Structure formats: structure tokens, C-alpha cells
């Protein structure tokens, strides 16, 4: 019996190992195409030995943010593969080294140091988690290595009082503050709704930043906040919050939650017969509408996305993504793809993989053609992208419609 058991144990563990190894969708960085082919003794000049340019990546592959983190890692990987297929950067191949930080700031700090000191990365791309950006920011300055990510919190770039600048921190997408203002301004400016309720996932940094930005905006333009409700990521029942919102007489709901809570809230609102307008962030984008229990529930929703999701130039990347990972990409993956494209432009502008040169190049970069926009520019004062178009999307009966480019009057001033 004992021996049998040992055998069974070993077998099972081995099987699980193999099962894990055999995952098709494993987001490990692909090795670059062999950088140095053994020079064949031909008459042709022997190809120069070229060191790969190393791009580091920190994201969450196995922790609490694994779903978003993996989507991002795949976007990077796809972009690096495409770049290598077209001859690399500055004629050199690109090697992407992605590390899993499990959404843990402490681990992220160590990984950043590892990428800086051991792997000699030229630049590091980052995940859509602000806590990682906030924790790493001082280290990035200390190491003199750019950390270029999708952090929502502008404190990552501008310090805690938003009055200084971390020289080596850069953001690739509009900050949560911008998203909060644009998302919340649309119902007010375009739909003429004046009374808002706010629902926020208080244990989710991005959501809190976004909600605070909206509250701030609402105060300035005179939107009446009827009620401010908080929930937690693990909540599966929002009756208390939604009942309060329903009874508060709000005309629209600013829903600052992550995808999971958005689904729970939308399902329950539908059941409770609440048909008020909802607005929020990127988290409403695909796959949100496919996740709600009834397509009819996903209605009267407006949210900003920084790219036109039906744009024809996305089709190639989307097809490649589906071919590689057997899943549809989310906007997070597209933005990750763009992060690498902008990185490439910065390295090319810098002319080498010198870290400081890349930083200087990235700080003043403009006119990069990528998926989000034809003209990606960084504001040297904030290290955040400038003038990124936000398209407002509408969901009715589970169908996404692009309502076009939108800049709130408030931001134009």
C-alpha cells in the first residue's frame, strides 16, 4: 500500500507538472531569433555578432492580478516577436525578459533591481497595477532605468503631492484621473445628466483614483453627488449599495469598479429594474458585455477607451493574438503592444541602448505611429501621454458602438 501510494503520488505530481508545462498559452518570453549564427566560411562578409537589446517586463502572471497581467505580457510578447521578424531595433534583435511579481510591491522592487543589475535591461515595461509603479518609482530613479507602464495613478510619475517628477517613470496610457474625468464628463456634458451616484471598489487602487478624480470634477462643474457607495473586490452582492443608489434619485452612476464588480453590479441593477445610465472606465470594454448574464442588462453604458476598437489596423494584431493564444485580446493587450512600439521608437531615437539616452528620447518622443494613435507624444512635464484621443463607447443590449472622439469642455480650458 505504501509503495503504491508513493507511486501514485509521484505519478500525479509528474502529470500535473507535465500538464502545467504543456500549456499552450504560457506567456513566457520567446527567445529571440538566434542572435549569432555561426559564421560560415563563405565569400560573403561574415555577419556582425550582435548583442540583443534587452527589454525587461514586470507583470503579474500567477497572483491576484493574473488575468490582466497575463493579457499585458502577451501584448508585449507579440510586439517583440513582430519587431524581431522585421529585423529588430537598430539592426539588433530584441530580447524580452518578463518576470512575475504576483502583484506584490516588495517582489516588484527586487525584480526591477534584478532587471537593472543582472539582466542589464535597457528599459523596463510595467503592468497595469499602480502599487507596483508606486513602489518601484524611487528604485527606478536610483538605478537610472526607465520604468514604462500602464499604472493608473499619476503619483507614480509625479510624486505623492503631484508636484515633483520621477525622472525615470513613464506612463503609456491616460491616467486614471483623466479616465475618471472623461468618463464622468460625458453623461454630464452630452446627455445632460446632473445627478450622479458613485460606486467604488475601495480596495482597488485604480478604482479609487478614478472615483476621486470624478468627485473632484463633479465638485468643480456642479454635478450633484447623490450618494457615494463603497464595495470590495470580493463582493458578490451589492444590494445594499444599489438600493441606496436607487433611492438617492441619481440620474447616472459613475461605476468605478473592476470588471468582476461591474458584472455583478450590472446584473443586479438589471434585476432591480434600475435603468439609469452607467459610466466608468476601460473595464467596461471587451469582455465585459459577454460576461453579464443577459445582454439586455448591458445597456445605457458609456465609457472612454483610448483607441478605436474597430479600427482596421487592429485586425492584424488581433488575428495574430488569437492565433498565438486562442483568446481574443482586450484593450490591455493592445496598449501593451503599443508600449513596446513606443519603446522601440525611443531606443531608435536614442540611437543606442544606453539607459539615460533612452530616457531622454522617451521624454520628448512624438509622432510614434502605434495602435492607439498615429501620433503618440509624451508630455515632458508629466511623463504622461499627451492628447491621447478618448473614444466614447456605448453599450446597448450587449453591443458596443463607437460614439466618436471626445474631449470634455472641462479639459479643453
Amino acid at each position, binding site marked *: 500500500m505504501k509503495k503504491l501510494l508513493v507511486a501514485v503520488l509521484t505519478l500525479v505530481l509528474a502529470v500535473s507538472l507535465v500538464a502545467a508545462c504543456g500549456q499552450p*498559452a504560457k506567456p513566457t518570453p520567446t527567445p529571440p531569433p538566434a542572435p549569432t549564427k555561426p559564421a560560415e566560411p563563405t565569400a560573403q562578409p561574415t555577419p556582425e555578432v550582435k548583442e540583443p537589446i534587452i527589454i525587461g517586463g514586470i507583470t503579474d502572471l500567477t497572483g491576484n492580478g493574473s488575468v490582466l497581467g497575463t*493579457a499585458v505580457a502577451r501584448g508585449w510578447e507579440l510586439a517583440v516577436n513582430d519587431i524581431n521578424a522585421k529585423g529588430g531595433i537598430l539592426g539588433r534583435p530584441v530580447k524580452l525578459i518578463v518576470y512575475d511579481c504576483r502583484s506584490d510591491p516588495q517582489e516588484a522592487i527586487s525584480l526591477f533591481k534584478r532587471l537593472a543589475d543582472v539582466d542589464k535591461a535597457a528599459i523596463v515595461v510595467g503592468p497595469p497595477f499602480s502599487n507596483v509603479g508606486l513602489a518601484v518609482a524611487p528604485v527606478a530613479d536610483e538605478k537610472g532605468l526607465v520604468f514604462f507602464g500602464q499604472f493608473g495613478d499619476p503619483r507614480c510619475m509625479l510624486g505623492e503631492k503631484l508636484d515633483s517628477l520621477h525622472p525615470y517613470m513613464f506612463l503609456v496610457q491616460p491616467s486614471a484621473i483623466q479616465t475618471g474625468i472623461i468618463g464622468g464628463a460625458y453623461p454630464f456634458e452630452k446627455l445632460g445628466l446632473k445627478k450622479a451616484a458613485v460606486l467604488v471598489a475601495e480596495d482597488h487602487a485604480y478604482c479609487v483614483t478614478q472615483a476621486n478624480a470624478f468627485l473632484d470634477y463633479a465638485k468643480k462643474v456642479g454635478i450633484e453627488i447623490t450618494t457615494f457607495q463603497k464595495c470590495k473586490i470580493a463582493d458578490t452582492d451589492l444590494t445594499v449599495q444599489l438600493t441606496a443608489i436607487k433611492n438617492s434619485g441619481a440620474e447616472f452612476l459613475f461605476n468605478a469598479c473592476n470588471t468582476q464588480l461591474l458584472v455583478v453590479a450590472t446584473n443586479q441593477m438589471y434585476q432591480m429594474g434600475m435603468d439609469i445610465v452607467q459610466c466608468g472606465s476601460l473595464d467596461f470594454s471587451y469582455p465585459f458585455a459577454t460576461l453579464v*448574464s443577459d445582454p439586455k442588462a448591458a445597456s445605457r453604458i458609456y465609457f472612454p477607451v483610448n483607441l478605436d476598437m474597430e479600427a482596421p489596423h487592429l485586425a492584424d494584431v488581433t488575428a495574430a493574438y488569437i492565433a498565438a493564444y486562442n483568446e481574443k485580446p482586450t484593450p490591455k493587450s493592445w496598449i501593451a503592444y503599443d508600449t513596446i512600439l513606443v519603446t522601440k521608437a525611443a531606443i531608435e531615437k536614442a540611437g543606442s541602448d544606453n539607459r539615460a539616452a533612452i530616457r531622454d528620447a522617451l521624454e520628448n518622443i512624438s509622432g510614434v505611429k502605434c495602435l492607439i494613435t498615429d501620433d503618440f507624444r509624451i508630455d515632458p512635464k508629466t511623463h504622461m501621454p499627451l492628447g491621447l484621443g478618448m473614444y466614447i463607447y456605448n453599450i446597448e443590449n450587449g453591443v458596443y458602438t463607437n460614439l466618436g472622439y471626445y474631449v470634455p469642455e472641462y479639459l479643453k480650458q
Partner: protein
Amino acid sequence: MNFSYYLQLLIGGVSNGAMYAIIAVGWALIFSILKFSNFAHGGTMVCSAYLGLLATRIIGANLWLTLAVAALCGGLINILVELISFHRLRKSSKQVLLFFVSSITMGMLLQNLVTLRFSGLFYSYPNFFKQRFFRIGNISFDISNFMMLAIAAVILGILILVLQKTRFGMAVRALSVDPRTTSLMGVNVDLVVLATFFIAGALAGVAGVFVGIRTILSPQIGSMYTVKGFMVAVIGGLGSLNGALFASLILGLVETAFSVILGTSLAPVGTFFFVLIFLFLRPQGLAGVFAMEKA
């Protein structure tokens, strides 16, 4: 407005309780019989929830078929859990905490395997219901919540019947008192334990599907909700099955009540003090009988 407001809150509390119940029943089954907690319960739950999802994708399973598939998978996974993380320990050690170490690692392993395969996108079950809710006046009822509660109660009833009335049940109860004597009486203890684990795993599978219906599937649903299951199973009376059901409902209602009184944000603080006071006033748990304690 007031009456319907409180009624809607009451329904919300009950539906929360129903979710705790369906998680806690499987948990309490292991606890009441083997006197230790299986912290891999969440891992089993999330694995079978995703396997149930595959069933809906590949063969287009309806609710009942999905539940059956998830229950079967959960049962089989739990048998593996028993063989890998409990089997040897049950024989060689009396340290209850070792079971904790072993099972929590196993749960981590299971969750990690799911993460490897299914990260990248959130998933949800297709809509199983023609009409998922009905409304009377201002008040809406979610059918899946009531189904969850009903299924938890029915399963519990059946379990209690089986435990009280059948030979198998007698063997299980004997085992929970003294495994050694039981085996001397000609009961195949290993088989009975495996069967218990299978049933608990099946319950975890059912719970996984319902939690998935309530929210969406992410590899973390296991670790997010099982601690609540543990809490409920212990408060319910240290392994009493019906105690767990009532404890779930009470916890759901208390949480909702504190959400209204203290605000949703501070509700856990209120719940903490409630649990503390409750444990003081009724240290024997809800069920009221001290289970045998393994030193």
C-alpha cells in the same frame, strides 16, 4: 418604500448567506467527520468551476449537466487531494495543523494550475436561465440565489439522512469518533474517507458553478471565498452540518445589517465584533454540541 427597502436588503442578506452555505456545506462535511479542515476546498472549487465552464463551451451543457460535470470533476479532484495531501498524514501524524499545511499547499497548487491555463481573460458561464429573476412590485428575486440555497439545503438534508439512516452513514459516524476501532470492526476506513472526500468535492464543484454564476470566473475565486467557508463551518458548530447552514444564513444577514448600520466599508469590523461576542456567549457553536476534539 421602507418596507420594500428592508425586504430587498433581507433578500440580499439571505442570498449572501446562500453563497456561504453552498461553500460551507462541503467544508463542514469534512470537518464534522474527520475533525480537520480541508483548505484545498477552494482549489477544488475553482478547478471544477473551470472544468464546468469547458463543458458549457465544448458540449454546450445546460445548468444541470454543468453542475453534474463540475460535481464529478470536483469529486475526482478531491480524491486526488485526499491521496496526495491527507492519506499518509492521517496514518502517521496526529498534528491537526499538518493537515492545514498540507491542504493549503494543495489548494495553492490547484489554483496555480488553473492560473496557468486560464489567465488572460475573464470568463463567465452562459446564461442558463430563460428568466434569471422575477420581480414583485419593487422587489426582485434572483432565481440562481434561491436555487443555490435550495440546493444547499436539499444536499444537506440528503447528507444528514444518509449519515443517520444508512450503513455507510453509520460507518462514517463511527469513523468520526474513533478510526482505529472502526477499522477493527471491519470497515474499510480508507474507502469511507475517500467517499467522504468525493462527496465534499462534488459539493465544492457545485459551489464553484454557483459562485461563477454569481460573479465571473477568475482563478482567484477559490482563495477569495473559501476563508468565509472556513469561518462559517467553525462558527456553525465545529462540524455540525445543519449548524453550518444556519451559520451561513446568519453571517449573510449580519453582514448585510452591518453594511446598513456602519456603511459597507466598515461592515467587516462590525462582523468581527459580532463573531467575537458570539463565540464568547456560545463557545460550543450554533449546533450546541461539542464535537470531539483531536488533541
